[in-house]
């Protein structure tokens, strides 16, 4: 009888096949291998070689980070980098008469790229649904982070056109690092060239500095904790109900509210956790990234919400969509149309699906209503409520609007979204039965809600270190934070070590970041 010893196979991760190959921030490979190796390589080159070698090393490291998932897409990315850099140079140097043509060509090429990879299937499905055809583009694998690096490069082209980029500021490698720098590459923050290209030339950047390393590592651990210890667990209360609704089930009143609130918290903690990790990682190399979240669930109106939520995307949409459309320069009606158009584009940017368009349309409508309400208040001098009542009321309305819109964002079909919204509204009854429980999810939602609404955000905790670009306005806004801010002392080290250790011990359950899908 055969007695051959079994060879140990490699093991598959619990993630789906695509997710497994991404070098996620919340993976053992990243935390224990990739990051230490990249830091060591960077510091060694900074010490014993030149700045150009450091930049080249980080570009290669970032491409390895990207290629880990799909090496084939590195070629696509490289082509995009070369083409956009060359176009940017051409636009900057071109005669005024031809600059606009070059810019148009560049923007169209970038949009064509993202349209093919991200929206071709959506377009075909829509046409097929309307015309009853069987049109198909075949299976197209979506390159990771394409929405982010496309936006970043389009902004670069536009700024070249505006004459805001000068040849002497950077070379090709620095441009590549500006786009691909791995902390912000896959899911932002969407970096503006002016924020980082200058830093890449700062002599203090890329050197092993104790303050950068400790602040960066602490910031990273806070973000990791938000992701694996807060966002992932609360997702368990949202997922079953959204899946059930997708499969045709009708959730109860309690289930629908639990799912919607849990998802709202999950999304914020997941994405802001990712952004914190990105900021922390960049800081370890001495680079400061822009802030992406400023406690959005504290917003008192929808415009305030968009000043706090995914701030770098809001900035991009404002500077490169809303203002070029005319902004508020062509009258009030046109301003409202521009607002709506900008939010529709923002919705579509998030995903190739009509539910994302609906989410964008809802936020567009919210902003339009908010704008009209403000005008009404200004024109008619309506009686004002006491500030505390008015703030509570406006916060409640804003949060309700945001949570309702998240249902479209999360639901994978309109039917599913309507089922959940119907249940939330009470149309299908007010049953408090809940298959995901009531007490446990209720406590999670309450605790995380308080954390998001009543506590300072990560940047505020680290105010002393000015952790992000243009931090001054945040710092000035909240002087009362002085007593709470992070300091390099033993107490904080113990606390951050506890968060970091606990998070690393939970990595085996880690899931993907939600915004990697966009």
């Amino acid at each position, binding site marked *: *009888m*055969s*007695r*051959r*010893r*079994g*060879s*140990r*196979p*490699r*093991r*598959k*991760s*619990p993630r789906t*096949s695509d997710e*497994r*190959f*991404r*070098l996620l921030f919340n*993976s*053992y*490979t990243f935390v*224990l*291998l990739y990051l230490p190796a990249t830091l060591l390589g960077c510091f060694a080159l900074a010490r014993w070689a030149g700045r150009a070698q450091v930049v080249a090393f980080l570009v290669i490291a970032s491409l390895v980070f990207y290629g*880990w998932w799909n090496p084939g897409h590195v070629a696509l990315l490289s082509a995009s980098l070369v083409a956009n850099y060359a176009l940017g140079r051409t636009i900057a140097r071109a005669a005024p008469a031809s600059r606009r043509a070059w810019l148009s060509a560049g923007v169209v090429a970038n949009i064509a790229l993202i349209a093919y990879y991200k929206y071709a299937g959506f377009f075909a499905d829509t046409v097929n649904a309307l015309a009853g055809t069987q049109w198909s583009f075949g299976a197209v694998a979506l390159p990771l982070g394409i929405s982010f690096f496309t936006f970043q490069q389009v902004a670069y082209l536009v700024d070249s056109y505006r004459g805001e980029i000068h040849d002497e500021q950077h070379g090709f490698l620095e441009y590549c690092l500006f786009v691909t720098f791995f902390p912000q590459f896959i899911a932002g923050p969407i970096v503006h060239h002016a924020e980082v290209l200058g830093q890449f030339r700062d002599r203090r950047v890329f050197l092993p*500095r*104790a*303050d950068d*390393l*400790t*602040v960066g*590592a*602490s910031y990273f651990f806070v973000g990791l904790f938000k992701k694996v210890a807060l966002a992932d667990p609360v997702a368990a209360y949202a997922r079953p109900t959204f899946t*059930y609704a997708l499969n045709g*089930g*009708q*959730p*109860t009143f309690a*289930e629908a509210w639990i799912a919607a609130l849990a998802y709202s918290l999950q999304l914020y903690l997941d994405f802001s956790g990712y952004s914190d990790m990105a900021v922390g990682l960049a800081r370890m190399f001495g680079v400061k990234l822009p802030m992406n979240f400023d406690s959005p669930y504290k917003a008192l109106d929808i415009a305030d919400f968009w000043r706090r939520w995914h701030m770098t995307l809001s900035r991009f949409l404002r500077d490169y969509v809303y203002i070029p459309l005319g902004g508020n320069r062509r009258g009030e009606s046109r301003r409202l149309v521009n607002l709506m158009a900008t939010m529709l584009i923002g919705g579509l940017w998030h995903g190739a699906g009509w539910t994302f368009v609906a989410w964008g349309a809802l936020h567009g409508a919210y902003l339009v209503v908010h704008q009209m309400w403000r005008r009404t208040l200004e024109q008619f001098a309506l009686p004002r409520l006491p500030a505390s009542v008015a703030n509570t009321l406006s916060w409640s309305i804003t949060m309700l609007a945001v949570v309702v819109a998240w249902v479209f964002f999360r639901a994978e079909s309109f039917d599913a979204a309507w089922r959940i919204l119907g249940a939330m509204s009470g149309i299908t009854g007010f049953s408090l*039965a*809940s*298959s995901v429980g009531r007490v446990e999810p209720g406590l999670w939602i309450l605790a995380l809600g308080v954390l998001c609404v009543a506590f300072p955000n990560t940047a505020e905790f680290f105010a002393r270190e000015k952790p992000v670009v243009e931090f001054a306005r945040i710092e000035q806004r909240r002087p009362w934070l002085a007593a709470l801010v992070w300091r*390099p*002392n*033993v107490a*904080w*080290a*113990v606390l*951050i*070590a*506890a968060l*970091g*250790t*606990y998070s*690393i*011990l*939970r*990595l*085996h*359950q880690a899931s993907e970041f939600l915004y990697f899908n966009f």
Partner: protein
Amino acid sequence: MSSSTSTSEHAPEQEARDAAVYRRYGFVLAGLVCGALAAVAVFLYAVDPEGTHEEGDGGALHAYRDVLNRRGRAHLLANGPWDAALIGSSRVALGYDTDAYGLRGGRTANVGLMDTNLWELVRVAEYALEVAHVPLIVVFVDLHCMSSRRKTNFDFERSDFDRVDDEGPLEHFDEDEGELLSLHEIERAFSTLEARSAGRARVGRNGVDRRELPEGHRYREDTAEHLLRVYLANPGTYLNFEYGADRIDELERFVARARAAQSQVVLVMPPKHALQMECMTQIELWDDFERLKRDLAGVASRQTTLVLDFAAHHEHALERMPRDDEPGARMQHWFDSSHGTPELGRLVLARVDAALEGRAQEAPLFGVALDASNVEAHLVQCRSARDAWRAANRDERVWISNVIHDDRLLRLLPPFARR
């Protein structure tokens, strides 16, 4: 001017002091994190709650580990060599003491999986064939494993069973070494140590589930509970049951691959108590039950493999189940209506051995070798035996009917299914 000079002179000193403060913080932070992780890794390596590192403790803790999950089962298979493997559901895990009886007298792995399905069992069988190179693979095929609606267990995806060809370095490091840095594993390690200190063995050397019936076990209550919770209220099984014919095709493809690899496959329909079969009759699953036997008989003929049917009204299936007011009474062959005891398992394995050696069947309807030529006649016999039992056991039929219509079923159903 002098003040400015003084400031600039002191700036480097201040910077150095600041750097020292940050460095101290960094050392404390890194020391605590690395120290804690190293301690956890050493602890988990020593206790090895997944049974991953066979060289770790020389097997001293093996019996106390909870390695009945998919990961543990995959490790068990990979840490062979094995002469045979039994692959099936919890009926296999609980009912076949392969420490005491090995097929063909060889070392036999018990790879019973809780809450499984045929799709998964085929993957496990492939693993046994291609990774563990087991020369004799016995797959226990139950009707409730047949539904195409059952989902894969999450635990399966975490195990070696779900290995794929297109893997990269990420999951290798993350999953293997990650086990040493896992909060979940810490809980399991403490549970292992607790079982060790209480002397409570959980698993036999070859994988049998060592759980024992509690004192005062109530067979009827347990059976009713099982029928309600596992078979009637589980949307993946009999409620909304849907016969997955594609599962049989997959199984047949596996049998063909095994034959090509010179491994022998035996397909077994495990025994069921008469009460279980009565339940299947009353909820109108008997036709599917027969269909499964026909399909397996077809596989036997096409692939010239051995298919043995123990799921009939043979003498062991008719063993009287004690009433709940007979607390001291013990069944010889059953834990409940579908889980047999190792004593029954030993009879099944002996029959498998006999069939492999070409010896004739001794007990009627117990381990009938099926093929396309005899299956219809066999089904007639089974039906006849069933009808005879039904005619003679009206009280039991009523009891089953009451169980099926028990209000507890409604309570056990998830709220979604209730509405």
